[in-house]
């Protein structure tokens, strides 16, 4: 008596409730406090740049998939997150069309040409950002003071001065989402609580940056709170697709990011090294995975 109503499939027959889409939306939700802080400090520019970046990212993905006659998968939320991350990493005064261009690059060159979700070796938002920095260097390094449109050349990392409190709350010039440590940490706690953030990468990243800052006689807290380090360590370096999958590998990745960041900050000609530190470590991710394979249960044990 074969019963054709019965579903036949291999075990396990139950699944965890979490989905890739939920993970993406969780990241987006964790970015909301950061975006809110950016909007508080930089007003409509924050709304303008982030909204257009997100829209451009989602539209680029849909367009690219439509042209290639592939299923359109923008509902997984990953393009939305990429757009949001890119938007929040831009200076407030950047022209809208440049943000749109950056998003297009992020999605098409950073992600889709490699095969889309999960297949890209580099963090797409950072690819977009790197192309923008290289193409529009002066616009990408033009900063405004919070609550005003006054242009300033001095960010806390580039000759400016700021108190710890100003750095913590975010009343300093900088990219939209990077200035408020408070908002970033709030988002980080949400990610960690929801199991989306592996603590090893940010702890390794920030820890290495802190230790090396101390070693080279820099103000450790100032170094940790200024620039895009905190934003990058929590939201960019932890991108699942482009960071290692082994526990040890995540430590290596975080520490490597910290090393490169400090190298660029202290000796490079750029004031900030976040983008390149993560992109370079992204390139090492496959190797790190290979070199940090966990010991398999029962291997290397002596027989009783």
């Amino acid at each position, binding site marked *: *008596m074969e019963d054709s109503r019965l579903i036949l499939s291999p075990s396990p*027959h139950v699944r965890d409730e979490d*989905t890739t889409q939920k993970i993406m939306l969780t990241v987006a939700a964790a970015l909301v406090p950061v975006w809110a802080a950016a909007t508080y400090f930089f007003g409509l520019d924050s709304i303008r740049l982030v909204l257009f970046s997100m829209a451009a990212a989602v539209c680029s993905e849909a367009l690219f998939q439509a042209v290639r006659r592939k299923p359109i998968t923008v509902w997984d939320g990953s393009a939305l997150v990429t757009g949001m991350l890119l938007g929040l990493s831009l200076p407030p005064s950047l022209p809208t069309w440049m943000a749109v261009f950056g998003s297009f690059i992020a999605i098409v060159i950073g992600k889709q040409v490699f095969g889309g979700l999960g297949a890209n070796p580099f963090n797409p938002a950072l690819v977009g950002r790197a192309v923008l920095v290289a193409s529009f260097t002066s616009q990408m390094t033009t900063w405004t003071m919070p609550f005003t449109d006054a242009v300033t050349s001095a960010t806390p990392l580039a000759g400016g001065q700021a108190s710890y409190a100003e750095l913590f709350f975010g009343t300093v010039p900088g990219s939209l989402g990077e200035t408020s440590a408070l908002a970033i940490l709030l988002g980080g706690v949400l990610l960690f609580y929801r199991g989306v953030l592996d603590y090893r990468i940010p702890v390794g990243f920030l820890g290495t940056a802190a230790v090396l800052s101390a070693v080279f006689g820099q103000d450790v807290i100032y170094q940790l709170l200024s620039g895009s380090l905190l934003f990058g360590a929590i939201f960019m370096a932890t991108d699942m697709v482009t960071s290692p999958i082994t526990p040890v590998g995540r430590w290596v990745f975080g520490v490597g990011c910290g090393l490169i960041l400090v190298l660029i900050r202290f000796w490079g000609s750029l004031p900030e090294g976040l983008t390149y530190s993560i992109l370079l470590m992204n390139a090492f991710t496959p190797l790190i995975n290979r070199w940090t394979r966990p010991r398999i*249960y029962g291997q290397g044990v002596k027989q009783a």
Partner: protein
Amino acid sequence: MKVKSFKGGVHPEYNKHITGAKPIKVLPAPNLVVIPLSQHAGAPAEPLVKKGDSVLVGQEVGRSAGGISAAVHASVSGTVLQVEPRPSINGREVLSVVIENDGQDAKAPMTGHHDPIQLSSAEIRERIEAAGIVGLGGAAFPTAAKLNPPQGCRVEYLLINGSECEPYLTADQKLMEEYTEDVILGAKLLAKACGAEKIIIAIEANKPEALRKMRALAGSNAIEVVTLGVKYPAGGEKQLIKAVLDREVPSHGLPAQCGVLVHNVGTAWAVAKACRYGQPLIERVITVTGDGVKEPANYLVRIGTPIKDIIAAAGGFVGEPGKVIAGGPMMGLAQFNLDAPIVKGVSGILVLSDKVAKEFDPMPCIKCARCVDVCPVYLMPVTIEKFAMNAMWDEAEDYGAMDCIECGCCTYICPSKRGLLTWIRLAKTEIAEAHRRQTS
């Protein structure tokens, strides 16, 4: 109290409340039983009866083929209708003895022992073998063979596995609550048979009543009862040994190689029955549960009872059935033919409604590494999956595919709903096949 656990694992919805408070009911023997000659790991038993023979309850109808094999017995008295291939729970047709129940329950002579602990270890092993006992936890490895540890191995610990970490199932729990004495006696007999110096009974913390009862009796018997943290697969042999003793079974090796034997509580119960009453393994406790069945319950059923009779006894389906699973939701086998009978290694029938038993379309892997984090043998399932998808069997083997215990944690946790375990199983099959070709 200290709770023992292991690295990795998952926390699925346990759903033990559905049947956890329901006492074991005896399910009347069905009109027809189907006794497959292969219910165990190893070689199928050889048939001892033919069409038309009349058989008694407990009569041996299939003889152990020797080595790794086990005898099978009639679970009802009556007439042999056929000895022919019949559908089994693993989807294949298996040579089976089909017996029409005459309702007499006439028993074959059984020789018990009033104080079985007096039996010598060889006598205990003989009785276990004669009773056709196999591991009742699911793997159905012949118990007598397991009690003969490989040369040079000394068994220090006998672990009695009462963790029952599969969600939904409560058969072992009820057995420990209602047949506490038999389980303890069986544990002592097993320990004597394998020469173990110490007995430890491990039970997950979500079975407080079973823990209390076992502890109450174990105290006077110099048996330790250990509380395990609630996490799947706490009852996996390797995970259990790691959690309780902090030892590891060597890769591709046997638990005896680290001085341990693990037996399920159901097996201990069956051993007690075999030694005290001489009763072969012809019945077992199962849980019938899930949102797709009207009256979930714990039943003592005859081996060979068709699944459809069990579902009928439990009040039938609620609405349209989605999935009928022999075993639990993590490692059980989905069924398509409900004529397949209950065999020794089946601890439950789980019926999931079509709402719960939904199928998923896999999404691209986002390398979240949750499968790496939960793997209780510390593999990188996502990497082996990738190798398997590209038919890179050597690389899959290098990454430990053969160490996979098929617990399903990776597939369970995957947010992209990928069938990781299915790919790893494919890799295991291909690797084993390649090894066979090499050696032949």
